[in-house]
């Protein structure tokens, strides 16, 4: 993981500078090793944890030797030499190279070693008996899982973090699991004896047997494992053994190349080994005498090394990390950081225990700062505590707040107490210092200005209140930025003013709006919002300029992080057929979808198509667009309703299909996700959708508005109760049109409903107090009538090269000379 991370960090800083070659003993690209426990327990698929597919490397011109072990560094000729692995050997094994294969040699200017570690094998006889496994790689996981199928009993050797995760993972494969631990308690590094005892009880309640102070000396069995023998002569039967007894850094290549190696490869604060052109990062490193076995410190090392190697910040230094960790296995809440017991006479220990619920919380405080903590059973405050621990924040006086959250509801960690390097915007990685600078030096005195300057608050927006607090302190006040009320930043008008001007002057295209209302300046950030508005104002006459569309709407698919696209065929109400599934499967296979995923809205997402393949993909699918991209009506999810469910009161499937057929592709200020449910049990979660219809006794339907279960969670408000599908369609349509006219661009329905209030909406939409009901009905009808399946562009593209991949031009030397 460290190796690929460094490369990512380097590319981010300077993508052009290096020709990069990578050796990896495992036959894959980079994957997230941390999630292996989830793969073992089946809560995640192997494919889900791959971080960079092989394509990622080739697209960045990185020469990746996957499945090739680097065996030595020739520091005189400046070559790294590697050999392919034998397919059956362990990547972290001592040899495993195919000795008969031709070695691969690559020249270098600089080398980064990130060989990680191998599992430590305690001295035991019979280690190579079939049925004994280690737990390190994705292949290990696969083998453990498949071997477990033919087993009744398994033993995990090692009661540390990983051993327990392995044990929990094995349980899901229906084997009886016993954990052996040589020490008198579990997780010695992270827990004190009392919390370890509680954890033991928790594990036992989950069905894992725990044996402490047990040292196994022999693995029994010839053809396969049959049991273990202990130091005291006793034995225990088992069908398989997983060894997880610690790790040891992999240092042979460094040692053989003459670098300084002690417990790990010795590195300075710049991650440089004893050879100035050779660096190392990750678990193989020994830095200031410390070896790290968690990713957080490794990420810090990678960032430092990238700064150094690209010379972006030659002063960068890694000075060591403080360690905090969590147990990830489902059902056990455990967080631990730093020391487990007091070490100095003045250390303060705050302790809370509630054994009947398995809750134990302990904090060790030195000079008003957190130096250690254990939270077991309840980890609500773990996030804040970890921040306080790593940042060495001065703690509030009421220590109880640290364990249970603040008594008066105020956040226990105030933004003023954070140091400048603390990250405020987690989406875009903006620190408090960066925001402060924007306010003080850049004179950004509104949230939006700070955002424009630093990108803080421009992601999910959840940090905006923190930015506001910082503004209050550093700028004295939050300035109302008039542009915050503009519909789009590039046209200085509020939405009602803008609509009035557009109508008065009959502006039907985005460029016309810029020309007439913005002095001819075409602000790219305003194009999409204007296009959406114009399209709802002039459903038939809107002049569609392609450049005003976001790429998703130019190619009618969703752009993904690697520049490929995902496609969601429309599946009305989530009901499909075997024939349709076959077609989808064939297309996925033929055009090599990188992932096929079921969405939360009951659709099938085909991810990772090349842009140039999109037209062919749709043609062959022959299903309309599922609109997973535009700010528009997306899906209407449904439960099985009266067709099959024994509780069903109303035909929720038929209703959802009617809704979806009617409103497909209708554009709106933001996306709209809908649902219908056949009874108030609400299996399709209709209460938390932008619009939901729920069948109740007596043939009636309740209509809910403004629910949310994404970035915000909100139960929708009841608009009214009606007696037919048609009425549901009518009121939903009315609401949509009203929202289209009055919602701010990118305002989700839940914000809109909260802003206007459900009473007001009920007055306008149901009681028709403004007398606009019939007009709203007519306008949404017109919008519905104007709908065209965008995927028709598969046969009739708007631009000749609408879907092409980069056009290749080659410059040939001969032609130049001629």
């Amino acid at each position: 993981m460290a190796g690929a991370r460094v490369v990512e960090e380097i590319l981010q800083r300077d993508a052009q500078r290096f020709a990069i070659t990578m050796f990896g003993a495992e036959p894959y690209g980079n994957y997230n090793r941390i999630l292996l426990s989830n793969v073992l327990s089946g809560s995640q698929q192997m494919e889900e944890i791959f971080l960079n597919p092989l394509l990622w490397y080739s697209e960045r011109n990185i020469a990746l030797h996957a499945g090739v072990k680097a065996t030595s560094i020739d520091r005189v000729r400046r070559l790294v030499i590697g050999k392919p692995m034998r397919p059956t050997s362990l990547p972290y094994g001592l040899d495993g190279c195919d000795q008969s294969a031709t070695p691969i040699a690559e020249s270098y200017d600089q080398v980064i070693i990130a060989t990680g570690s191998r599992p430590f094998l305690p001295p035991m006889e019979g280690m190579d008996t079939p049925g004994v496994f280690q737990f390190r790689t994705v292949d290990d996981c696969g083998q453990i899982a498949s071997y477990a199928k033919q087993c009744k009993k398994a033993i995990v050797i090692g009661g540390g973090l990983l051993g327990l995760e392995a044990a929990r993972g094995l349980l899901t494969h229906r084997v009886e699991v016993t954990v052996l631990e040589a020490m008198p308690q579990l997780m010695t590094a992270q827990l004190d004896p009392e919390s370890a005892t509680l954890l033991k009880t928790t594990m036992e309640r989950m069905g894992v047997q725990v044996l402490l102070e047990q040292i196994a000396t022999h693995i029994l069995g010839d053809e396969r494992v049959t049991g273990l023998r202990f130091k005291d002569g006793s034995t225990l039967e088992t069908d398989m053994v997983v060894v997880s007894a610690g790790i040891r850094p992999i240092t042979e290549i460094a040692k053989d190349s003459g670098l300084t190696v002690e417990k790990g490869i010795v590195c300075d604060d710049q991650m440089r080994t004893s050879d100035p052109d050779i660096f190392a990062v990750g678990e193989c490193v020994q830095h200031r005498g410390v070896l790290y076995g968690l990713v957080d410190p490794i990420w810090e090392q990678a960032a430092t090394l990238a700064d150094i190697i690209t010379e972006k910040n030659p002063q960068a230094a890694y000075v060591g990390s403080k360690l905090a960790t969590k147990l990830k296995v489902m059902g056990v809440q455990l967080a631990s950081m730093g020391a487990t017991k007091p070490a100095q006479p003045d250390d303060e220990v705050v302790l809370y225990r509630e054994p009947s619920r398995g809750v134990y919380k302990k904090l060790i405080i030195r000079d008003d700062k957190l130096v250690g903590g254990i939270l077991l059973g309840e980890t609500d405050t773990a996030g804040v505590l970890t921040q306080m621990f790593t940042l060495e924040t001065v703690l509030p006086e009421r220590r109880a707040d640290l364990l249970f959250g603040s008594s008066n509801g105020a956040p226990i960690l105030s933004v003023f107490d954070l140091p400048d390097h603390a990250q405020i915007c987690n989406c875009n990685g903006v620190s408090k210092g960066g925001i402060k600078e924007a306010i003080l030096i850049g004179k950004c005195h509104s949230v939006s200005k700070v955002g424009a300057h630093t990108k803080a608050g421009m992601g999910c927006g959840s940090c905006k209140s923190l930015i506001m607090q910082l503004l209050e302190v550093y700028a004295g006040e939050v300035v109302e930025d008039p542009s915050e009320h503009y519909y789009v930043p590039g046209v200085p008008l509020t939405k009602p003013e803008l609509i009035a001007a557009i109508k008065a002057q009959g502006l039907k295209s985005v460029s016309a709006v810029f020309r007439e209302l913005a002095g001819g300046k075409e602000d790219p950030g305003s194009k999409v919002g204007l296009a959406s508005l114009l399209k709802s104002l002039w459903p038939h006459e809107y002049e569609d300029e392609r450049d005003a569309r976001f790429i998703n709407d130019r190619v009618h698919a969703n752009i993904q992080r690697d520049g490929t696209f995902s496609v969601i065929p429309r599946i009305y109400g989530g009901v499909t057929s075997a024939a349709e599934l076959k077609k989808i499967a064939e297309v996925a296979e033929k055009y090599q979808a990188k992932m096929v995923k079921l969405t939360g809205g009951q659709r099938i997402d085909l991810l990772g198509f090349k842009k140039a393949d999109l037209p062919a993909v749709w043609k062959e699918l022959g299903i309309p667009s599922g609109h997973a991209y535009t700010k528009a009506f997306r899906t209407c999810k449904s439960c099985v309703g009266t067709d099959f469910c024994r509780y069903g009161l109303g035909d929720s499937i038929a209703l959802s299909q009617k809704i979806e057929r009617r409103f497909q592709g209708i554009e709106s200020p933001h996306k709209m996700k809908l649902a219908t449910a056949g009874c108030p049990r609400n299996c399709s979660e209709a209460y938390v959708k932008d619009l939901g219809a729920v069948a109740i006794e007596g043939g009636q339907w309740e209509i809910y508005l403004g629910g949310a279960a994404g970035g915000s969670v909100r139960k929708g408000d009841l608009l009214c109760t009606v007696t037919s599908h048609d009425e549901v369609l009518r009121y939903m349509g009315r609401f949509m049109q009203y929202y289209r006219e009055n919602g701010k661009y990118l305002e989700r329905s839940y914000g809109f409903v909260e802003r206007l209030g459900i009473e007001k909406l009920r007055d306008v939409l149901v009681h028709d107090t403004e007398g606009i009901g019939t007009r709203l009905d007519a306008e949404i009808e017109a919008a519905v009538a104007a709908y065209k399946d965008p995927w028709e562009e598969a046969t009739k593209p708007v631009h000749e090269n609408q879907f092409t991949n980069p056009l290749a031009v080659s410059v040939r030397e001969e032609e130049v000379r001629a």
Partner: protein
Amino acid sequence: MTPFEERVERRWSDGKTTWRSVDLGTVDSVPLGEGRAYTVNNLGIAVFRQRDGQLFATESTCPHRNGPLADGLVGDGKVICPLHAQKFDLTTGHCAGEDMAIRTYPVREVHGHIVVEIGPQTLA
């Protein structure tokens, strides 16, 4: 000089370094207001054609997370990357509020063709 002669493969020297003019094809292959990506030998180039007809050329991927810049929104001499909305000046390559930049290339229209000048070292 005929369009065909102009057609790309002209080498010229500004004294120290060698630049090359490369013909990327007709101007209308980039729709007004949009961008398109090209690869010249192995070099990725994005060409943008603003609504007022101005042409711009830059490297084709975003230094932030490799977003395909040609797929971005264009206007007022700027492009917005489609992945995380970083905004770059198409003339200078500067990114608003960030410490990164994209490489830009001189580009002009010659007899209805897009001709971009690719300068020292960048072309293999």
